[in-house]
């Protein structure tokens, strides 16, 4: 049996931009290496009578491939994204209404499902929809030698004998979604799970960890940017954006130590998303000016 000896935890360079579309209520683009997804969310809006659910909002997810019409594969991805979002959104706050999340694939260079999930999460955040947790998706491949490659490219995906995509939530750090391809032994999953869970908890920069960390980092930076717009200390933050993933932890600490955000933001602490979101929404206007 193949052993998964060394696990090479490195994600491709990734980035995100929010509020880049003016029409949707929330939008974001997420880039992982060369894989890129643009997303927009509309709602809460009126719902068709046939789709109305009396005690919560109806979430619809549409995935548009880069070329051609959406097919069966997109439909199955839609199901994954939708049910993951449904679990993290507080849909019961908007009964009898509709939310439509549209994801446009700009380029697929591997790990598409995880990129879709990340884009979805960032978009929901941007729309200011109430959520009970954030989620992030990670794809990993097991190559022919039994080594785990996180965030594989399309070429690595092709060479791999198994491919797994997980979505984790930010509060309990449990598995929200799994989708796998190829056959693999039970041990490999165990190894991966232990690895994922332990690493996430200890925040040593595992795949899941970095994802979360980075997503939070985005929000922080974003919020911070809103703050600094007023406190005119923009230079420090803009330079922090260009820093690499490895260096983002000090940035976060730096951020948390700044007097504007009163409480220090430690990783173990639950991020006060709601407050930030409300704040963020208030300030969007001024920021856009």
């Amino acid at each position, binding site marked *: 049996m193949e052993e998964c000896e060394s696990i090479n935890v490195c994600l491709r360079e990734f980035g995100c931009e929010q509020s880049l579309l003016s029409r949707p209520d929330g939008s974001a683009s997420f880039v992982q290496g060369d894989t890129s997804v643009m997303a927009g969310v509309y709602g809460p809006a009126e719902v068709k009578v046939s789709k109305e659910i009396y005690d919560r909002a109806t979430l619809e997810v549409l995935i548009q491939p880069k070329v051609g019409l959406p*097919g*069966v594969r997109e*439909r199955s991805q839609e199901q994954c994204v939708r049910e993951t979002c449904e679990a993290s959104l507080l849909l019961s706050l908007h009964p009898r209404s509709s939310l439509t999340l549209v994801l446009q694939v700009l380029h697929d260079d591997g790990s598409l499902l995880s990129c879709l999930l990340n884009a979805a999460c960032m978009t929901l955040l941007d729309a200011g929809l109430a959520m009970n947790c954030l989620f992030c998706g990670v794809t990993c491949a097991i190559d022919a030698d039994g080594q785990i490659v996180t965030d594989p490219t399309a070429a690595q995906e092709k060479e791999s004998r198994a491919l797994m995509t997980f979505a984790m939530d930010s509060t309990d750090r449990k598995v929200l979604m799994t989708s796998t391809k190829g056959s693999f032994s039970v041990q490999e999953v165990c190894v991966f799970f232990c690895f994922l869970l332990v690493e996430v908890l200890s925040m040593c920069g595992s795949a899941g960890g970095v994802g979360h960390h980075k997503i939070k980092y985005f929000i922080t930076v974003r919020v911070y940017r809103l703050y600094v717009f007023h406190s005119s200390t923009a230079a420090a933050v803009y330079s922090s954006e260009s820093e690499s993933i490895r260096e983002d932890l000090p940035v976060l600490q730096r951020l948390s130590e700044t007097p504007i955000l009163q409480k220090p933001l430690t990783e173990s602490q639950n991020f006060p998303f709601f407050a930030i979101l409300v704040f963020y929404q208030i300030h969007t206007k001024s920021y856009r000016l």
Partner: protein
Amino acid sequence: MPTDNKRVRGPELSQSPALFACKAAPVAPQQGPRADGRQRDQVDVRPVFVRCGLVSQAKGSAYIEAGDTKLMCCVYGPKETERKDETDMKCGRLTTDMRFAPFSCPERGSWVQGSQDKDFSLMLHESLQPALCLHKYPRSQIDVNVVVLENSGSVLAHAVTCASLALADAGIEMYDLVLGCSIRQDGGSYVADPSYAEETYCSSDGASDQGRLTVAFLPSLNQISGLQSDGEMSAETLTAGVRTCIEGCYKLYPVLQQALIKAVRKAGPPPSES
């Protein structure tokens, strides 16, 4: 041709291996006893196996097997009309849907409903409607869904029978059961309840009186609710054919009665108040 995005796609073009067969498939004999041993020119219908109430989710359901022809029917409703503009305040609505499983015919069919399926749905609708007390179900809709699992001839006739059984099993008020029977006229002779090969076979000598006939019949009212005939037949042959079909229907009747009685017994007495 528009591509189907909602299903897993295969190659653009594929052909049945039967097209390349070295030996031609055996042709149904045109004289003497039929391929399955039944008699020509007699009302020799295939023995049927009927069972009611198989589908747990449906209000009523029935399964019929005649020779290799296998059909299943489910009835849903009466329920609220789906489209509000079609709501009839005085009368219920009957909708019928008949489809063939892709593997049901010797040639693979497509998932998309073809014109033949739609024709059959319409015929089914017309045959069933006179037997139903639709005025008892105002503003509501009754759905009849038929799936052909294996097509070995006389599909429409058996679909009618199966659907009326399912309606009875669903407890929909009816004037009578509807029974279906079909024949294949071939010149001077005919075959009752034809098989797929007998149904599709083309007479080479161009003789007159070539056709197929399907009759839907209400046995206790002694009325015909549906009649479909293709091909060219003289008036006398047609009337004789209709009579043959009615005779065939009467042969089925006791089997269906037994199946219904069995289904009712199985359902047991209504739960007592306790």
